[in-house]
């Protein structure tokens, strides 16, 4: 087999790992949508905000330094110490949980029984508020995030796969960060699934996703479930923020990864956790392979920008509920 074939395999593997990153973002959407029927437009901004907060803690930035300086004429920026990555992640997680509590108290509580479109609009407002708030708190400059995950091509894999393809093949080039992301995402998803299957809170989460009234009647408080769901979504956003932030820096464009999650959701269905995973993988592999096989040779390249959306659109026409979504059948 020639080098061409193995190059194709490499593209496939890279597609899989890119797909994992998409799944990570899509997962946050699915969690909230399942439990509360809200399409959370702010999920991408939550990832940005979580990453900003993480960098801020790590570097010992003083929150709202800009604001304080402007009001009091001071010149403060940093506390002057750096926090270890592990501790900073815990603190950032704490902030995301606090955020979940505030969202419930200040927004969701007042919008119980409202139309989905109104809840959707509320999350749009929330997204833009958080974007501004994050800037105000931590500054709007591009930041580098390093929590100690190694980056760059993995030489071990490259050297040990070089023998496969003969003289023209130099081994698979895979980014170590992507490999870490894949493993972490796999652990995250597995533990989420186990948690929802085998604990009482997990069962309560699924119950609320299925039927609010019945959930109330067995003694589940919807409000505390919402806090938990948004907290978990915040945690997923933090993980996504760490991965994407380590890859391409923490900056505004990080929030746009949410747009990449949309085709994943259309493909996988809004209500299915496995759907988010499989959908992400299909999109990741699909767009890389399409570019490799058709895009670059015949269409002049850059098909990755639109391929996912086109695939999702085709899918919508034939299977509106997505691969794993529940088909809604209403009695006439």
């Amino acid at each position, binding site marked *: 087999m020639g080098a061409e074939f193995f190059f194709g395999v490499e593209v496939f593997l890279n597609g899989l790992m890119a797909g994992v990153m998409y799944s990570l973002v899509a997962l946050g959407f699915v969690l909230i949508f399942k439990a509360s029927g809200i399409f959370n437009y702010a999920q991408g901004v939550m990832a940005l905000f979580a990453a900003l907060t993480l960098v801020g803690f790590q570097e010992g930035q003083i929150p709202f330094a800009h604001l304080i300086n402007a009001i009091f004429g001071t010149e403060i920026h940093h506390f002057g110490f750096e926090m270890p990555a592990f501790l900073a992640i815990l603190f950032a997680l704490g902030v995301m949980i606090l955020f979940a509590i505030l969202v419930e108290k200040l927004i969701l509580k007042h919008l119980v029984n409202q139309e989905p479109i109104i809840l959707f609009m509320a999350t749009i407002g929330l997204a833009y508020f958080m974007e501004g708030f994050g800037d105000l708190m931590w500054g709007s400059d591009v930041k580098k995030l390093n929590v100690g995950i190694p980056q760059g091509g993995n030489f071990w894999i490259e050297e040990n796969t070089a023998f496969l393809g003969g003289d023209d093949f130099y081994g698979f080039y895979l980014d170590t960060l992507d490999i870490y992301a894949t493993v972490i995402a796999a652990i995250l998803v597995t533990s989420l699934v*186990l*948690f929802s299957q*085998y*604990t*009482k*809170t*997990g*069962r*309560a989460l*699924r*119950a609320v*996703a*299925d*039927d609010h*009234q*019945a*959930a*109330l*009647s*067995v*003694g*589940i*408080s*919807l409000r505390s479930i919402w806090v*938990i769901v948004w907290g978990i979504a915040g945690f997923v956003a933090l993980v996504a923020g760490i991965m994407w932030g380590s890859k391409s820096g923490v900056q505004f464009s990080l929030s746009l990864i949410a747009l990449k999650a949309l085709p994943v959701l259309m493909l996988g269905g809004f209500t299915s956790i496995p759907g988010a995973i499989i959908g992400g993988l299909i999109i990741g592999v699909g767009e890389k392979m399409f570019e490799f096989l058709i895009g670059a040779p015949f269409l002049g390249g850059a098909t990755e920008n639109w391929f996912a959306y086109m695939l999702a659109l085709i899918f919508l026409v034939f299977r509106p509920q997505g691969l794993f979504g*529940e088909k809604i059948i209403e009695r006439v």
Partner: protein
Amino acid sequence: MTADGRLIGDTVMEMKNITLRFGGVVAIKDISFDIKEGEIRAIIGPNGAGKSSMLNVINGFYHPQEGEVWYKGARRGNLKPYEIAHQGIARTFQNIALFKGMTTLDNIMTGRLTHMKSGLLSQMIWAGKAEREEIENRELVENIIDFLEIKSIRKTPVGRLPYGLQKRVELGRALAAEPSLLLLDEPMAGMNIEEKEDMSRFILDVNEEFGTTTVLIEHDMGVVMDIADRVVVMDYGKKIGDGTPDEVRSNQAVIDAYLGVPHD
């Protein structure tokens, strides 16, 4: 003591002059009645009489504009439905409100939520209290599954079950809460005779074996007269009769409501 030797105890719940309005529509008008420990108390009446509304008042989905609800000797404030569930009131729904994506076993396990106290952290690592609690409660749930004869569908998602079995699972979920007060909203609606007989037997067995106080809404008069100890009859939101099945059966207002009266 009833004829079959069951023990009817003190008043568990007392509804005092309940009035419930939706805007200008009066769903329940100045109704009072009591529920005694260990009895099967039926609420009957034609469609739109306000029976389901009454059940919703008892379990807190609705809060009446006037009147008082007394539960276990104390006046109950306007609690949320989930708080009332924690006080030991469980219910089923007229149109079945199960968690359709979950299995029979999981559905009935949700009925145990009010009895499970482990913290979030211990659940996350599935150790200590969380693990113990799961196992203990699982045992009780398996007993209920045995009792209701639904062993063969333990792992089936309930959305796929036929109607009659869904009703049975819903009863199981309510029983899992070991309620002091069990509310059943038309448990036999839409069932065939055989299914109705099964369901009647389960309701009677539960009441006899565990002494569960049961409030029952039912359309099938035959069933109600057979299994209820006392019956409240409602019509157009008002109470028109209250007493044992025999008393109610011979009550002229009740007969008129059911058969209609010629207008003079």
